């Protein structure tokens, strides 16, 4: 009982929200490209580059806010190259995405060495993180106040972005067009909506959020840059995007699942479970979710077929149209 109490308390919720934020930001970014019909495996690299340049910008300007802008700009540059190659040159999305990830990995380490003459990680050098926001009167609100107060700003941005994203896809022209381009490009073309323009816009918007996610990693979640510090969060985001189909609500649910498994596994560590196994938990959860949900996708297709049959049959009495027996179903 005592163990359970130590495991599940407000601190766990706080930890979950903290670990959810970075992956939520990058997954929300990825929803733009996913919904525009682009498979963007390059999120990981955009996030990593964003994290690195956020640190560089902060060290050289002294302001984490300028650092944040630098991180976003760097991720945007990578997103632009992605769009250029994938949309204009029609290169293979997987190849370009992977190459950009490798580019980001190599570039951050090389620049780290070139600028600071060191490897591994960088902290100090006047690096300051984003300030922690304390919500007034939070203290008086007890556990709830504890839960909602005391995060760095990008945590709030990540969670507040979810309803804005829902609004964006439902109520704005751009959001609508992104969905149309991804779902039915012929319809967009027929109405004179430029598919290329929309896909560029979606890629760049994606870059902004991947950059924010990176900046949050290096200036909010921690205050340092480490080689490959995105550590697969971009890929997990892609897994979430695959089974959420880019829907903000489902993205939030998926990210909370990872945040929770991450936070819970970090607690397991305090009980003496090997850190290697603990670190593997989020990846295993991502894989399990990916497989489980692709398995479930099948019955849905069958359901849709049945539904469309039902529609067709409702036009006239079913008896005449239906063969006596179904020997084999597709």
């Amino acid at each position: 009982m005592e163990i359970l109490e130590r495991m599940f308390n407000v601190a766990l919720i706080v930890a979950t929200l903290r670990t959810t934020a970075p992956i939520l930001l990058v997954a929300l970014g990825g929803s733009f490209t996913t919904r525009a019909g682009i498979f963007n495996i390059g999120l990981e690299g955009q996030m990593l580059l964003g994290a690195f340049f956020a640190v560089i910008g902060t060290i050289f300007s002294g302001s984490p806010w300028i650092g944040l802008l630098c991180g976003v700009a760097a991720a945007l540059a990578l997103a632009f190259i992605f769009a250029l190659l994938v949309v204009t040159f029609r290169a293979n999305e997987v190849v370009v995405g992977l190459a950009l990830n490798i580019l980001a990995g190599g570039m951050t380490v090389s620049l780290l060495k070139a600028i600071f003459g060191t490897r591994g990680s960088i902290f100090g050098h006047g690096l300051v993180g984003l300030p922690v926001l304390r919500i007034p009167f939070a203290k008086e609100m007890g556990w709830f106040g504890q839960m909602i107060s005391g995060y760095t700003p990008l945590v709030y941005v990540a969670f507040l972005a979810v309803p804005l994203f829902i609004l964006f896809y439902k109520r704005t022209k751009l959001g609508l067009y992104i969905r149309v381009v991804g779902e039915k490009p012929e319809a967009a073309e027929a109405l004179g909506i430029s598919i290329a323009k929309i896909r560029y816009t979606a890629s760049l918007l994606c870059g902004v959020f991947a950059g924010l996610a990176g900046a949050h990693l290096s200036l909010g979640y921690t205050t340092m840059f480490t080689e490959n510090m995105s550590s697969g969060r971009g890929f997990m985001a892609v897994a979430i995007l695959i089974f959420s189909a880019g829907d903000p609500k489902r993205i939030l649910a998926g990210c909370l699942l990872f945040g929770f498994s991450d936070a819970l596994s970090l607690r397991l560590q305090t009980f003496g479970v090997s850190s290697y196994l603990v670190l593997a938990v989020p990846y295993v959860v991502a894989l399990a979710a990916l497989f489980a949900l692709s398995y479930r996708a099948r019955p849905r297709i069958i359901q849709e077929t049945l539904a469309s049959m039902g529609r067709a049959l409702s036009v006239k009495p079913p008896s005449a149209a239906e063969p006596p027996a179904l020997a084999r179903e597709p």
Partner: protein
Amino acid sequence: MNDRISALSGQALAIMIALALGAMVILAVSESPLHVLLTLLDGAFGNPERILGTLLQTTPILICGVAACISLRGGLFNIGIEGQLFMGGFAATWIGFSFEMPPVLHVMAGLGFAAFAGLAWVAIPAFFRARYQTNEVVSTILANYVAVLITSYLTINIFKRAGGAPDTPPILESAYLPQLFSFSRANWGLVIGLVLAIGAHFFFTRTARGYAVTEMGANPKFAEYGGIDIKKQTFFLMLASGAVGGLAGGIESLGVHHRFMEGFAPGFGFDGVIAALLANGNPLGTIVTALFFGALRSGSLLLEVDTTASREIITVIQALIILAVSAQILVRRRATDSSAGERRWKF
């Protein structure tokens, strides 16, 4: 033949553009590109020992490259070769230090188990790809992280040898993969790699199954119409690719390190995938691209000593080359084939 020449010259042009961009990056980290190039060349080919060092680096890239070619040829992306390499490396090491066997048998058992471990590691993503079209790019990438962490766990929490270093116990000498020359760790793995590459080329161009795989990659509807079982073939092709990836790990542990440790063979799996992509899925071409990447890696060791540049600058160059080539292939294809740009990746 003309098509071939124009394709190759296009590829060469793309590489030149990438190298020019790479030179700019090197300038950006305040080094002379020429100096870096000469250092790389010196480090890769400066003396016989360095040449063998290059071959040592080439071996795992080549084998992983062949593994990638196998999946690419059938239109599949096994990006999880890194993970299969780690699993295979650990599996072979385990056979190497846990059992006593006669020399040749011990090596074969180790490599066999390594291949099996790679195969087993890819089996679940392969099954879901074949049966439910689950995106294998993401599933195999995520599996990489798990493989690295699991092998680290096994190494450090279960099998850690006495003493400080985070290693497994060394393998018995009977499990050593023999070296090619007395003065270098370059070993028979290189020969195995060359045989695999040539074998894969033969398989794809001369055998009925290889033909079926190639057509599945080129036009799955045509293959299906011709009576090829796409699901079954997808599953087994991924398994084969994983087995070769596992074998690469086994060769690395039995031939080079003679033990398993954290950070066992970093990036070889990814380099293999890139080498295969650059060779357009052709196993013989992968020999050349793997040698190229092996030389870059080996040269970069000296780079770190002689210049202020980091050896990761070579991964930047590799990435630039892939980007340039991927754009260039499609420019050419678009000019001749209006169906280009057809996307496999849609969800």
